[in-house]
């Protein structure tokens, strides 16, 4: 299963709640009515803004570091000579900026420990 934007919107909708300001009689009887969920449109907008913020920061050339997950870094690549592997043509690749991701040790440990559990189950 691939996790996509739609899944993230769904999860944010389900997990982020607001408390109701004014309590009616119903809320005392049914405490689960005591919160308001975000609408789908609003959540989509918020998640979109979040992605836009990340992209904006990277486009400015700034790194994005997320503790426990990893960091997105901008790297500068010098121009170099290259070759089109299909035609064998010589070309010059311009200097450019790229995004690289370094996984945090915490995430790495989590990903690898999941493997060991799986291996133990299969064997």
């Amino acid at each position: 299963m691939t996790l996509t934007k739609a899944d993230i919107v769904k999860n944010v909708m389900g997990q982020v709640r607001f408390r109701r300001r004014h309590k009616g009689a119903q809320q005392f009887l049914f405490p689960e009515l005591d919160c308001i969920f975000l609408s789908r449109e609003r959540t989509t907008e918020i998640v979109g803004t979040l992605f836009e913020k990340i992209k904006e920061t990277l486009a400015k050339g700034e790194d994005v570091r997320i503790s426990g997950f990893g960091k997105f870094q901008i790297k500068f690549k010098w121009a170099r000579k290259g070759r089109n592997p299909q035609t064998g043509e010589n070309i010059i690749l311009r200097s450019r900026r790229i995004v690289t991701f370094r996984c945090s040790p915490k995430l790495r440990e989590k990903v690898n420990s999941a493997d060991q559990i799986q291996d133990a189950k299969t064997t």
Partner: protein
Amino acid sequence: MNKLDLMVALSKDSGLSVTKATEVVNVFFGEMTDALVRGDRVEIRGLGSFKVKRYRGYTGRNPKTGKKIKVKPKKLPFFKCGKELKERVDIHKSKPKGGSR
């Protein structure tokens, strides 16, 4: 920019309180972590995709002492940059907004 800056920036742009923006950011990265731990792919249009890559073990050498060591097989999350982000980050292509080529 770290996680806190991202939360503050999100709260400013979306009109959410910082507490709620924190929750949104945590849900987002939490979901991604869970998906990667399960071994699933994460694909976000415009930003990029994550995949767990398996690496085989090999015998390496400690460059300082020259001792042989066995490197165990490992799995690492791999990030592939999305098209939109790639074009925006690249200085030469980012000037015209929209259909740049």
